[in-house]
């Protein structure tokens, strides 16, 4: 039997339906375009890294081809694709840009971080100076707005903080116990976050703090294997679900806000994504590893 109250609820639901639909649209990144080739139509092979900057440049670590590719994305047009192939790099996996346009590249084979100048010429491998203990084995690294370098040293289970010249500033030990920590992120205010991939957890250490504490509980029900992490200027944490083919956004409090994108092969889908980069203008670059491409998305405003 339809009562007056039921009718009211039904009408309200019908009125709200378009709002709900548009909210769903707002949370989904919109594909701009997949980038498949270099400037000579050579195909990318298993690209694992991508870095971007506010000038519109983006650099791809074309891991399977053992090279970097330099592009620009300005006024809705992707240009470039010129190859950077220093002899010292054989398997680039992660790439970051500092404020001067210098490239820092983690090489999967030598397990070293290479420093390249903005032209793409090899400068040196990063040799941290004055660090306590043994030389680091970097699994990942990040660069903050002041060009300080943060290395995820899995051999000594710590985050090493270096100044732009590679001089040791301080370190923070991984929490105990922990699973396999695969990435870190640094905010503008200097807070450091870790992602524990096997436990699907995010840990945080505020700028002044000495230790990492869990920001989230285990999120195994919501993701398979978070392998990369970045944080935007609003504090939203983006986790790349490598094995699940998606991106999960968490609020600054660690609560899950949404899951974006889906596993697949067609344009707009992801298949074992690696590094992502979120530009200040709201473009999301995804190294879509097993689809042999990088994809550009417009993030919801």
């Amino acid at each position, binding site marked *: 039997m339809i009562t007056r109250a039921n009718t009211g609820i039904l009408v309200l639901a019908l009125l709200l339906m378009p709002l709900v639909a548009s909210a769903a649209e707002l949370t989904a990144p919109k594909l701009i375009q997949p980038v498949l080739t270099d400037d000579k139509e050579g195909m990318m092979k298993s690209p694992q890294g991508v870095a971007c900057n506010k000038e519109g440049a983006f650099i791809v670590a074309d891991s399977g081809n053992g090279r970097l590719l330099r592009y620009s994305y300005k006024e809705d047009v992707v240009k470039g694709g010129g190859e950077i192939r220093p002899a010292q790099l054989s398997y680039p996996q992660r790439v970051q840009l500092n404020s001067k346009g210098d490239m820092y590249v983690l090489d999967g084979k030598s397990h070293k971080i290479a420093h390249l100048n903005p032209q793409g010429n090899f400068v040196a491998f990063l040799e941290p100076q004055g660090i306590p203990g043994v030389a680091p084995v970097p699994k990942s690294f990040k660069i903050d707005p002041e060009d300080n370098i943060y290395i995820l040293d*899995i051999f000594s289970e710590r985050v090493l903080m270096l100044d732009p010249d590679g001089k040791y500033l301080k370190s923070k030990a991984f929490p105990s116990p922990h*699973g396999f920590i695969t990435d870190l992120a640094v905010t503008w205010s200097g807070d450091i976050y870790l992602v524990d991939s096997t436990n699907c957890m995010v840990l945080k250490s505020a700028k002044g703090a000495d230790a990492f504490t869990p920001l989230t509980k285990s999120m195994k029900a919501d993701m398979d294997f978070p392998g990369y992490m970045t944080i935007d200027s609003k504090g939203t944490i983006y986790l790349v679900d490598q094995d699940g083919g998606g991106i999960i956004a968490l609020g600054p409090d660690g609560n899950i806000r949404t899951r974006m994108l889906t596993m697949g092969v067609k344009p707009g889908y992801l298949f074992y994504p690696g590094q992502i980069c979120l530009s200040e203008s709201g473009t999301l670059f995804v190294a879509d590893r097993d689809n042999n491409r990088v994809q550009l998305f417009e993030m919801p405003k």
Partner: protein
Amino acid sequence: MNFSHARIAVVVANLVLGTCLFSHAQDTELKYKLKPGAAGKLCLQCHDTFKDKLAKPSIHTPLKKGECIGCHNPHASDHGKLLAADMTNICATCHKGMIPADAKSVHKPVGEGTCTKCHDPHSAPAKFNLLKGGNDLCFECHKGMGETLTKVKFKHFPVTKGCLTCHDPHASAKSASLLKDAVPALCLGCHKPDKPNFAKAHMGYPVTGARCTGCHDPHGSDRNGILYNNVHKPVMSKMCAQCHEANNSATPLKTKKGGYELCRGCHSTLINGMFAKNRVHWPILDKQGCLSCHNPHATKQKGLIKADLITTCGKCHQDTIRRQEKSLTKHEPIKDGKCISCHDPHASDNLFLFNQASVIDLCGTCHDWQKHSTHPIGEKKRDPRNKNLYLQCLSCHRAHGTEYKHFIPFPTTSDLCTQCHEQFKR
């Protein structure tokens, strides 16, 4: 307490217990308004087979006292066998506290309330109403253990005496695996470290704080000293100092080097080979290094792997193992825990640490039919969905399975095929 005091205590206890049982019988008679003296006799007038049960050595106390209504309702019940409560709860109405509040491990039948897996609720030939006496009862479920113990050359003496020497059959507040105490405290109860033989066997290293079960199989093995069957060569030859600092140093258990660097001392060819590859399995590079997957002393598994590969690999790759468990079609190598059929656990130049560069060649090592498959595959056949991919086995299948049949990522075959053959989409 001297002997006369003990006797007094026994007499008092008997009096208290007798009074309790007498008052309980009285309560029963009152509850069901039984004729005086009917309790303990009335049920047996019909259930005469119980005379046989009452002849068995171990009889459940309520039955012995004729208190059938301790467990059964004589008139009607919502539960089978006219039980006064659910089968999984009824024992706990009297036998409270079988599971400690902070239990570290609970025997599955106890947790599930299926006490009758071990106990007969009426009577049994063995003590405590157990269906069988000694280890035979345990081996009813723990068959593998029973079979192993008949084969092993060296048995741990307490095992032959009885599983309950070390295990609590219900729950343990102190340890996993229902152990009565945590290791090494449990072991040190019998094995005194101050004995010369103990020190000699352990090369003078202070192992009393170590986990004994890291090297020794607590049930038995074919190795002297009940070491696990696969022993690391330096342990076999008692050359602990090859990896550890000297036994008289300040930190004798500390290893001479950390991570993979320690293992490289002997396994240099293997480790140098790994570092020549593009992709090294990341755990090798962390603090634990090789010990992320291997036990440095002794294990049950070949290659000193810590456990079977499903367990060892699944420690980190839980999502992959879960996917296989959910899969409607099982991939044989994964089902059998042979992860290394396809993956190199140390290093590879290929994604997913595949053994071979070509997925088609890799799958072809088992699936030779793919060579004459009718669907075109190979580097010259581009994937219509993404021209940067060529068609290969993983274009349509997920090797670890999906929630659908045949490892395909769509509910039906037509859903899969129309991904590319869009003209046939309905």
